[in-house]
């Protein structure tokens, strides 16, 4: 085991895969010579050279289009979109081209590509640099959607995403970049589509993603310590494929579900999971399904305001208490 930061785990995951497969290439804005604006890709150009790790112009449509064209002709490209908010400037390539072309052409081509992006709030960057947009991607058939919460998962899930023959959108939570954790040293691959039960519990299931996972864990600690409530906490890790087996098993046991998501309220992944449970596990439920989300607003910039609106451990505790009381 090595102690790596979430940030370092990005480069570690990419490097692991670039070493074993020279069709893996990596492009993006300021990712190569400068090592990325979040310093997530430092050292890659030095190790793999200027042909495999390349800086691009500010041209997200070109970046993602080129990534698609390369993937359908023999490469396994990785692209960086600096902030996930910028998916909006190249969304056509992602959702109309990459996601659909395999299906439309009766399976003639595959798209083994990964698009990484720094996602989420907490850095006081304001509404255009702080969004959590995993749900935008989840809504589009043809995209796999992954969002790790720990350095080990960053490395392992990123490796799996690069090996995956389908397009994967890989959301890195920018507020986690500085966090550290144990990461297996040798080859490390974590399969996509497996949620992780981080804490066993019997009274309520709390499911969360990325930065919300720690808050859910803190909430579970408080619930246990202060209220004697035993919460099971699940890190969803991958929205597509979605591990309904693990989630359903837990909800069947606890009979109560709280989802914790960072995105604004409407049409988030929590709504999807809630509607799945309301349809398929209704008779197992002993109470409403509660979603903790950011309100349906753009994120404000000032620290006081941003902290006030995002889901917090306290809000999760409050939601559970309302539910279990």
């Amino acid at each position, binding site marked *: 085991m090595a102690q790596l930061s979430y940030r370092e785990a990005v480069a570690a995951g990419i490097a692991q895969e670039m070493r074993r497969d020279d069709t893996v290439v990596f492009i993006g804005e300021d990712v190569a010579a400068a090592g990325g604006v979040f310093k997530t890709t430092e050292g890659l150009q030095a190790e793999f050279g200027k042909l495999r790790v390349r800086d691009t112009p500010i041209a997200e449509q*070109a970046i993602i*289009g080129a990534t698609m*064209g390369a993937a359908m002709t023999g*490469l396994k490209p990785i692209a960086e979109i600096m902030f996930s908010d910028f998916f909006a400037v190249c969304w056509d390539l992602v959702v109309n081209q990459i996601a659909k072309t395999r*299906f*439309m052409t*009766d399976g*003639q*081509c595959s798209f083994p590509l990964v698009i990484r992006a720094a996602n989420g709030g907490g850095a006081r960057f304001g509404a255009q640099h702080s969004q959590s947009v995993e749900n935008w991607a989840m809504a589009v058939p043809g995209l796999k959607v992954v969002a790790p919460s720990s350095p080990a998962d960053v490395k392992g899930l990123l490796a799996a995403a690069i090996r995956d023959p389908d397009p994967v959108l890989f959301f890195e939570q920018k507020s986690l970049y500085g966090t550290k954790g144990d990461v297996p040293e040798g080859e490390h691959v974590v399969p996509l589509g497996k949620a992780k039960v981080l804490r066993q519990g019997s009274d309520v299931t709390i499911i969360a993603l990325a930065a919300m996972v720690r808050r859910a864990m803190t909430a579970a600690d408080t619930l246990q310590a202060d209220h004697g409530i035993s919460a099971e906490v699940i890190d969803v890790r991958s929205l597509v494929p979605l591990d*309904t087996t693990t989630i359903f098993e837990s909800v069947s046991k606890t009979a109560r579900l709280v989802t914790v998501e960072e995105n604004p309220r409407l049409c988030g992944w929590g709504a999807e999971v809630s509607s799945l449970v309301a349809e398929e596990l209704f008779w197992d439920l002993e109470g409403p399904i509660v979603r903790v989300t950011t309100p349906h607003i753009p994120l404000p910039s000032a620290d006081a305001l941003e902290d006030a609106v995002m889901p917090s451990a306290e809000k999760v505790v409050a939601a559970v208490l309302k539910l279990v009381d």
Partner: protein
Amino acid sequence: MIRALPLNNQTGQLAAAIENATTPNTETRLQLYRQMQACRMMEQRAYDLFMQNLIKGTSHLALGQEAVAAGFGTAMREDDYSFCTYRGHNHTLVRGASMTGILGELMGRECGLLRGKGGSMHLMDAKRGAMGSYAIIGAHMPIAAGAAWSAQYRESGQVAVCFFGDGTTNIGAFHESLNFAAIWDLPVVYVCENNLYMEYTPIGEVTAVPNPGADRASAYGLEPVLIDGNDADLVYNVAVAALQKARTGDGPSLIEVQTYRHGGHSRADPGKYRPDEEVAAWMKRDPVITYRQRLLDDGIEVAAIEAIEAEQAARVDAAEETARNSGPPPLEIAEIDVWADGSSTWRN
């Protein structure tokens, strides 16, 4: 024989190649004619099939623009890549795709190239390098750059050719792609088929420069090239030169070819917004008819020409027949092949 349209400052590698090009040999010219007739007859048949309501949805014919697809298709290497638009039946056919597959796809039949999953706007035959038809303006331009980047990286010597219309030059993806291709010296040839209209609007009304492709080339450090796209020999020669340039590492080209669609923009459009004289003038420049005459004038046997015509007529008849007899696609295929494992499963 080689007639480039006049354009200021038109100098450079491609201009020189056009200048020095000679008439293609007879075998090549018969192949150009064969390709044009195949396209022409297939699309005329497609038109008849609409009229019989056997083709549902929309469809965009390139009747009148055949010299472009034929010229490039004939010049390309088998393993080169081509990317085209919703108006891409011909570009797909000239790469060797099955005519039955194309007509079948338009008709939504099981024998369709995509078994009915894509429709007329999305033809692809990847194993022949026909890397797809894209229905959102400009999207395929960076994708083509990506295929070229892949070829460059793999040192395969392949070139990507990307066809698009005049109207497409005003969208952002055009700009991003050209700059990207230029700075990385990518082996990609961008072919702007200027047929004077973006759907129903004359291109001049929505474009800040007279020549939507050629007048933008210098913004990417590229040579401006503007040619008569109804002249198959000329298109072929330019294609050879641009492919060669790309293949030898001299980077991308942007080639504007002037042409005209004989019919409306799409199935829904009778094309009435076009002045009668304009249509008449361009009908006189029909690339298939004028090329036939040129071949005869140049001493090619009428028998050779008629043989091609008969062969292609038979080919279209056979394709139609097979497509008509093919059933609708099996319903199960609607829920497969979202993913590489063949499934559409999003949960475990």
